[in-house]
């Protein structure tokens, strides 16, 4: 045989205790026809006995499958990105259509309500003619889209913690998914400095600033976090910086280790308490501006 790999077992050119070499051989090797590999392993002194061979095979196959499963789970950030985009599309479309329903329904039913709730109520009505039926059906579509958005939100809540446990804990699942999406993946988010994460989602404002036409943005999509929008205006920059700093650490932990670390949250809480204490010190009427 000219091609060494084409006619041999997975163990042919690896040392018996090298699991990573075994993984490469198991994943990438190939041959057309099976052979009595256990016997072959004995002949070539890869194993001392059949039992020994099977023990090694068990270790090698489970190691390989586990590594592949873990690699796949890390890739689940892409599913999360798609689901948050789909959720936003459903929300936006539902709201747009709800306006259309409201405008149309208002001309038929004087008591028609507004928004998604209005559509929900209209969808339950009985139609008395073909025109009303169209409006009621359309309202039904709005309700379905809004429900789909809710289901997607719930799916994101359930999956984000397994993709990025630390980020999801600190940012909340939906914001975590948005940050991962803005960065293009967990890995690239993990490689971004805190200052970049702080303004992710504010790219337009950032470019305007770089062209000298605007002040530098203090926050991007992390504005939706309570720690930022719930902090009084003059302290928001500090809050955004503190949050972004811990989000950067969380993203790195999620990408490189994948384990939850409660320390990060505790440190952020302490820092936020200090920042908010400034408002208390300045007088309580300023604090809830």
């Amino acid at each position, binding site marked *: 045989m000219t091609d060494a790999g084409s006619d041999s077992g997975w163990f042919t050119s690896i040392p018996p205790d090298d699991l990573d070499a075994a993984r490469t051989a198991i994943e990438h090797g190939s*041959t057309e026809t099976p052979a009595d590999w256990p016997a072959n392993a004995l002949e070539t002194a890869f194993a001392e006995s059949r039992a020994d061979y099977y023990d090694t095979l*068990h270790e090698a*196959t489970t190691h390989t499958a586990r590594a592949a499963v873990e690699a796949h789970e890390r890739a689940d950030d892409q599913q999360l990105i798609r689901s948050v985009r789909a959720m936003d599309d459903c929300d936006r479309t539902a709201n747009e259509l709800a306006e259309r329903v409201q405008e149309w329904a208002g001309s038929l039913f004087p008591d028609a309500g507004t928004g998604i709730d209005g559509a929900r109520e209209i969808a339950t009505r009985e139609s008395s003619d073909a025109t009303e039926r169209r409006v009621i059906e359309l309202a039904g579509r709005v309700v379905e889209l809004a429900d789909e958005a809710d289901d997607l939100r719930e799916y994101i809540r359930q999956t984000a913690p397994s993709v990025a446990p630390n980020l999801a804990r600190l940012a909340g699942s939906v914001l975590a998914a948005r940050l991962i999406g803005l960065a293009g993946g967990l890995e690239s988010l993990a490689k971004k400095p805190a200052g970049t994460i702080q303004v992710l989602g504010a790219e337009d404002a950032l470019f305007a600033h770089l062209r000298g036409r605007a002040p530098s943005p203090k926050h991007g999509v992390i504005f939706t976090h309570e720690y930022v929008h719930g902090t009084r205006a003059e302290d928001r920059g500090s809050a955004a910086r503190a949050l972004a700093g811990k989000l950067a650490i969380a993203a790195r932990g999620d990408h490189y280790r994948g384990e939850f670390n409660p320390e990060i949250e505790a440190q952020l809480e302490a820092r936020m308490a200090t920042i908010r204490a400034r408002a208390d010190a300045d007088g309580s009427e300023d604090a809830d501006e």
Partner: protein
Amino acid sequence: MSELPAGVERREFDGESRLSTRGEPVYGEPTDGAWRAWDARRSKLGAMIELGMATGLAGGETVLYLGAAAGTTVSHVADFAGPTYAVEFAPRPMRDLLDVAASRNRLFPLLKDARSPETYAHIVEPVDVIVQDVATRGQAAVANTNARFLNENGRLLAVIKARSEDVVAAPSDVFERELDTLRESYEILETERLEPFHDSHLGVVARPK
């Protein structure tokens, strides 16, 4: 009724006589000492045995299992068979299958596509039995391309799910078509619908031509 393989017994669970094997529980099935019930409603091979098909299983044989999923059935197979190679191509169920394999040291999980046997023929030895439950289109073709693994006197125990091939055609037409394809590589020994355990599934016992 054919005989049960060694390592498979009928035992009483909550006053009901059921198939069982000895091993770590996997899917919340009832247990009785070291024995755990083998739920024929959750396992198509379990249903084939429950329905008395002549699987030829005796216990201790070498097995290639195609479509292992989270390991509901292959866990029982590994309990009574010998070395068991479990092929599954979806990473999610593979995670659970790894838990099943943790307590079964002759169960070898392989994250591979059963349509490409050349990607695992360097690992899998010739076997006495192929069990197949892939439930995706082209089920007979998967069995044919894997026939290379079967010993001369080996058995194919396959399940054909009608809806995986064609959701509108009558199941009996789908089964005929798939059996025709299977005959390219196998001699069909027995077929049986798996109702009431599984709707619109056909159990097939075959041997290589």
